């Protein structure tokens, strides 16, 4: 079908592998979002704290530079589980704001103008569509959370030696798993709200409210029923308890398994919401 011929011709060339088709979606979304200077600046800002932490690790192991000016950094900063927990606590907030910036428009744009039938009339399933949109957030949020976390862990291991790496392997596991719990929760929440709320600012506001409003809900439930199970309504707290459980530190009252269950229930709810909305056409029986 050459431009000058102006007649229809079938395509007989090679096709991309089916498993890789979902990756088309993040590529197109990134083309758009990286045009925003604000977003780019925010992304750079989100990597400053890991850089500072990297500098601290460097200085911790090159203390002679500072000792020359009589500063004992080893006494100020200990590179341990708390150090990495502090890093990840900062990074998950950056991750949340990135999801808040991108997430609400991911699905709503396609739904607003009936774009879904065009996606789904191709050899492209609903699961691949969700996976494609999920990977938009998952890739970016990984760059902010567990990727710098593990890079710093590797840097510390490089300086401190294999014995430190093996005795603190739990930190690496916690950085990876804990980050993925957060990425999954935030990404699925953003997608589900984007599918149900077409107006982006409202979807963003709801994301904020689900995370912060959970705290108020927790206080109300605990106060009314004189229990501590209301803590489970606070997603931030649930993820924090999971984090503490992974890293092996004692958490507050709520058991770790209950926090896992609460997060799993929330993830299932998001998947259910997506399953209801991500359809070529809605059928009203």
């Amino acid at each position, binding site marked *: 079908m050459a431009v000058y011929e102006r007649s229809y011709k*079938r*395509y007989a*060339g090679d096709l991309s592998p089916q498993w890789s088709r979902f990756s*088309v979606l993040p590529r197109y979304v990134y083309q758009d979002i990286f045009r925003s200077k604000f977003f780019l600046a925010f992304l750079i800002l989100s990597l400053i704290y890991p850089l500072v932490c990297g500098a601290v690790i460097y200085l911790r192991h090159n203390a002679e530079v500072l000792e020359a000016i009589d500063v004992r950094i080893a006494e100020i900063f200990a590179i341990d589980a708390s150090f990495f927990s502090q890093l990840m606590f900062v990074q998950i907030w950056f991750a949340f704001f990135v999801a808040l910036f991108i997430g609400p428009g991911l699905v709503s*744009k396609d739904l607003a103008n009936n774009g879904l039938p065009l996606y789904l009339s191709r050899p492209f399933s609903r699961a691949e569509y969700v996976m494609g949109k999920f990977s938009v957030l998952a890739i970016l949020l990984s760059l902010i959370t567990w990727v710098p976390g593990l890079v710093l862990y590797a840097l510390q291991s490089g300086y401190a030696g294999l014995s430190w790496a093996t005795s603190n392997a739990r930190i690496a596991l916690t950085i990876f798993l804990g980050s993925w719990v957060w990425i999954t929760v935030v990404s699925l929440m953003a997608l589900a709200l984007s599918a149900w709320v077409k107006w982006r600012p409202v979807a963003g506001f709801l994301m904020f409210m689900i995370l912060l409003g959970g705290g108020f809900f927790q206080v109300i439930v605990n106060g009314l029923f004189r229990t501590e199970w209301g803590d489970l309504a606070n997603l931030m707290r649930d993820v924090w308890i999971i984090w503490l459980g992974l890293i092996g530190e004692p958490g507050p009252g709520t058991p770790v398994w209950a926090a896992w269950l609460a997060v799993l229930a929330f993830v299932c709810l998001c998947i259910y919401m997506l399953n209801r909305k991500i359809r070529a056409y809605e059928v009203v029986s």
Partner: protein
Amino acid sequence: MDPVIELEDLSVRFGRLEALKSISGAFSGRAIGLLGPNGAGKTTLIHTLLGFYKPATGKGRIFGKDIREQDKAARSLIGYMPERDSFVAGMTAVKFIRLMAELSGLPPSEALERTHEALYYVGLGEARYRKLETYSLGMKQLAKLAQALVHGPKLLFLDEPTNGLDPPARERMIHLIKDIRDTGEVHVVLSSHLLRDVEECCEEVMILKEGALVYYKNLEEERRTNRKFLELEIRGDRERYVEGVRGLGCECALHDKRAIKVVLPPERTIRELYRLASEQQVQIRHLDYKKDSLQDIFLKAMEQPVGGGNGSL
């Protein structure tokens, strides 16, 4: 010719509503018109073949690929132009259609090349870098056609492609559909409630009524075998005259208040109809040779009782 679409007792239900009722048949035309009044199930049939709705019973195959078990393989052969506005806001036509091509499996460079070709082909070459939401209705229809063509499908579903178009835009769309059909590289299923569109573009026609298939024929063959009949407009005692005409061995049907349709056997002549009229003092005001138009076929099909469809009347 191998069937393009095969349906075996295909039914679709939405709650209590049976949207498609046990449709069976093998359809192999180069251009198949899908006709029916609003709510007849035309769009539901297309959506079911695309895998959007799960059949309650029965099976469907597209080029031999089962629409449930080999859904992706079947959809890779299909291009779909939906009835309603469908696009992704904020994208230029080039970006949108390239995205659609890549989702169909084309590598990025080939997708871009074919996107430009498809947009030039449908006549949007000069407007291809404009955002889709700025397009007029006619341009959006053409963009939808381009995205349906870009990956080079073997079967094209066009759902009401001329909806809302002004006459020149409609002409352009019909010309494109005929051009695509005439390349011989793709089969077209054209769903429309506009008989003229189907008559101009299609060689076969399926008529749906209340979710059932009530007619499937090759239009060309039908036209060839369609007997000529006479349409008479008379004044006088019509019933007595009709009785007399039947007495001559002619098939006869009352068309409306005044018109009568008459099929003359070879041994009878028109002169005998005039003679009978003269004897009965009936005036023949108008006499003309006619053939069943698609409208007649459609109206006849609408009179058919709805039962299990079998692909032909």
